[in-house]
């Protein structure tokens, strides 16, 4: 598998592995490893992955325009483009952008939902809305995505203002990695939350990419 660092995925994203091909996937950098793993497992060599900086997870207003730029740059080089983002905090704007560009995207509100399975997540949301979610990527990048941007490294006294209404941190694991489970448990401790480890695998992401791969 391509050697990539989480820091590069966070700040810079991922350049496409090839400049032309059948299907281009434009994804969030936080999904890069998972998509590359699925590509390898399923032999989806006709799919080319490029990623936008994962840090847009906390700056979702940047996502629609960034997606639009890549689609416009690359659409002549590929037969099909698929956007591997859910709504991701864009309040429907990414959906509008994709519709305008004539490209499809992943269904659902965010990666926590499609990893769990959108239908199941919607059911669980009734009872789990006091839960804070982390994925494999976000556990590894907890400081870059949670601790530092929220200023908790400089002002730990703000913690309860952010997390006082939360009860539990749910680590949605895409892979079985005991070290990540321990890191996630430590994240929960730092936030003062109870901890749950829940293996989700790739959830609806895998189904969405399978459907695209078969097109």
């Amino acid at each position, binding site marked *: 598998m391509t050697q990539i660092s989480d820091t590069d995925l966070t700040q810079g994203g991922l350049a496409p592995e090839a400049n032309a091909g059948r299907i281009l996937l434009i994804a969030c950098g936080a999904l890069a490893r998972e998509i590359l793993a699925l590509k390898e497992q399923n032999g989806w060599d006709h799919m080319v992955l490029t990623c936008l900086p994962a840090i847009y997870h906390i700056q979702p207003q940047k996502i629609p325009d960034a997606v639009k730029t890549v689609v416009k740059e690359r659409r002549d080089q590929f037969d099909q483009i698929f956007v591997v983002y859910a709504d991701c905090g864009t309040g429907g704007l990414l959906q509008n952008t994709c519709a305008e560009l004539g490209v499809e995207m992943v269904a659902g509100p*965010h990666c926590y939902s499609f990893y769990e399975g959108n239908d199941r997540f919607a059911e669980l949301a009734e009872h789990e809305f006091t839960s804070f979610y982390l994925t494999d990527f976000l556990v590894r990048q907890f400081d870059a995505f949670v601790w530092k941007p929220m*200023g908790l490294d400089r*002002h730990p006294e703000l913690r309860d*203002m952010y997390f006082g209404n939360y009860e539990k941190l749910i680590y949605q694991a895409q892979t079985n990695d005991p070290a990540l489970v321990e890191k996630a448990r430590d994240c929960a401790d730092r936030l003062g939350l109870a901890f749950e480890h829940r293996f989700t695998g790739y959830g609806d992401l895998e189904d969405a990419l399978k459907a695209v791969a078969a097109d």
Partner: protein
Amino acid sequence: MSDEQEIILSELNDEELVEQMFDDLYDGMKEEIEEGVNILLERGWEPYRILTEALVGGMTIVGADFRDGILFVPEVLLAAGAMKGGMAILKPLLAETGAPRVGKMVIGTVKGDIHDIGQNLVTMMMEGAGFEVMNIGINNPVENYIDAAKEFDADIVGMSALLTTTMPYMKIVIDSMVEKGIRDDYVIMVGGAPLNEEFGKAIGADAYCRDAAVAVEMAKDFMGRKHNSLSA
């Protein structure tokens, strides 16, 4: 701040003190703000004047720099914490001294959503602008908004949501108010990170407020129009 630069607030004249309080608010220095408020009170300033000139004035700078990307959420929260310290001293005094009341607002985060940072900021800024605010907290079903608005005789109902999954609930609240024939009794303002102008219009809100400062300006504008239409 190093020792040689230490500023003794009580030694500053009024103008310098207010300027210093702007800086202290900007830096989130709660104790210094409390001290500044107490000094101005001792000097005979009316509580409402301290609120508007020193605290709201300072928070307006914070709000503008947040909007312009110079300050970020942690710094705004620290500034808000400092302002809250000053407000805690002033609030009982404001009630005693009969500060002007601009209007009444009920605000809360919608059902299924526990994020209250934004609405707490709006509450504070609205109170600073002379509104009476009933903050009904988080995870509010339709009936909470309707009951609170009636009980409080509100002019404005504010709804907040941070999640894409919870923001559609705002439409359920508005539709319920329409069904009950009470929609037009209130100005409905909505806000929260994933919202936008288009969404606000689509659900039938009167205003989408990008941030707390915009919420205050819009609320004042609506109240001004209401007074004008009543006096016409």
